[in-house]
């Protein structure tokens, strides 16, 4: 089960990874190798077998609606690559490329 270059490009865009041309080439080969291996699960008969998302049999774990202290503005922005007026500064927002 291979993966073509167009799919690599599409997935890279979804994942927001600006990969170079040869990175994409290598990615295509490596993903194909890995997918060839994992595709063996296609041969299993899984009819009537429910998917497992959680292994702990817990249910209804919730917290009471209580307010706890927040970080200060300084703490919140301490690691910001760029900030202005107490806010995180980001380049112009455009729709997904």
């Amino acid at each position, binding site marked *: 089960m291979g993966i073509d270059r167009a799919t690599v490009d599409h997935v890279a865009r*979804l994942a927001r990874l600006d990969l170079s041309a040869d990175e994409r080439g290598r990615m295509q080969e490596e993903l194909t190798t890995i997918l060839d291996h994992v595709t063996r699960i296609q041969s299993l008969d899984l009819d009537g077998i429910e998917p497992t998302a959680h292994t702990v049999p817990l249910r209804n*774990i919730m*917290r009471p609606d209580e307010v706890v202290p927040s970080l200060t503005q300084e703490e919140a922005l301490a690691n910001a690559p760029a900030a202005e007026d107490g806010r995180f*500064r980001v380049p*112009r*927002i455009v*729709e997904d490329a």
Partner: protein
Amino acid sequence: MTVAATGTYTTTIGLEIHVELNTASKMFCGCAVAFGGEPNTRTCPVCLGLPGSLPVANEKAVEYTIKIGLALHCDIVGASLFHRKNYFYPDMPKNYQISQYEFPIASGGWLEISNGATRRIGITRVHLEEDTGKSVHAGGSGRIADSEYSLEDFNRAGTPLVEIVTEPDIRSAEEARAFVAELRAILESLGVSDVRMEEGSLRVDANVSVRAEGETEHGAKVEVKNMNSIRSVGRALEFEETRQRRALDAGETLVQETRHFDERSGSTSSLRTKEYAFDYRYFAEPDLVPFEPSEAWVDSIASTMPELPAARRARFASEFGLGDSDIEVLTASPAVADWFEQAATAYGGDAKKIVNWIIADLFGLLNEAGIELPASKVAPSALAELVRLIDSGAISGKQAKLVLGEMFTTGGEPGAIAAAKGLRQESDAGAIEAVVDEVIAANPEAADKVRAGQQSTIGFLVGQVMKKTRGQANPALASELLRNKLS
């Protein structure tokens, strides 16, 4: 602007409504939920999406969502699950939104709107998710399109958000407006949200499509955004409906797009975004375990449900004998309805009188003062007392208006105010009879006309009695005495 179109068309509208819950803390962390405030002062590792942080669901938010589901006649699912909705946006700290997908908390309900005829609008689903932060667009006009850069504030990020999706059952802009108004009243009476559209705690998006009569398949779906008041929902969708009809009349083909409503021009304009297929890669949120509300819990929530607007309207008709127009005005806001009900109960008599005083007089004073009824100094019981004073004939309706004005400014008791102003009405037959005799003596021609059966002239004589008593005589009593004496 909205010129009627010539062809006959069917309009199909579906709404997607986001409601911010008014819980004390956020959906998945303990940061406070509030509007505005200094930017980034209500964040923590969880709602900032810091490495290693984990969400824990707010029980109250789940309870509120079940409440909304029950109010909209939905089925509450036995097992619900949160999913991750994956897409990048700088106001979304984790670059995925914890939302719901296959197993929303509530689904398959309906809401009745009465706009002329009563119609039932299907509710597809009611699910719980987290809100995003807020972007401020700097440079340019402040609109995202031509801004130079943006600034992110995550105070709102993680606020509990309920998404309500309707079936495409709505047939006109007016029905859409009515639906949002009714939903807003329901949410307000449930007390689960501030429902302030201008503050974004109630956000409405609509999918509008128009197709020619007989045409079987739906027209191109147009998504309309940025409707910031119930009124603008009506205006925006009416504009959009007409725009699409006119386009079809002109033989144009409509394209699927997202359009932005502009409050000032009252028109919608295309956002011209690259329409590229989103791929949200939903999968079950591994950080949150499944959620199975017990029947006992759902029942206990159901038992705490307040009377909803529809039921209350029915009761106002049966219990107080009010007409539809009065009921609509009173129940537009639960607070007003509560106030009316207290006054009417305190009064005990014909509630219509209370309604008239609220609508005809109190609302006027409130508008001038620019305040809401609950905030006024006039207590419901005080209005009831005022009406009783009129009934007993202690003061006239004219005088009562003066008293109400005083009550509104000082919050005083009507009886005391009337006394202090020397406002009273003479209802002692003996005292009035003397004046009546004087008036008959002073106006023989008029008296004769009445004796001759010209009842209309009694009005003139009553006027004379009122003049002599400087308005304090009870006019009803005066005309009764005149009639007896001149028959």
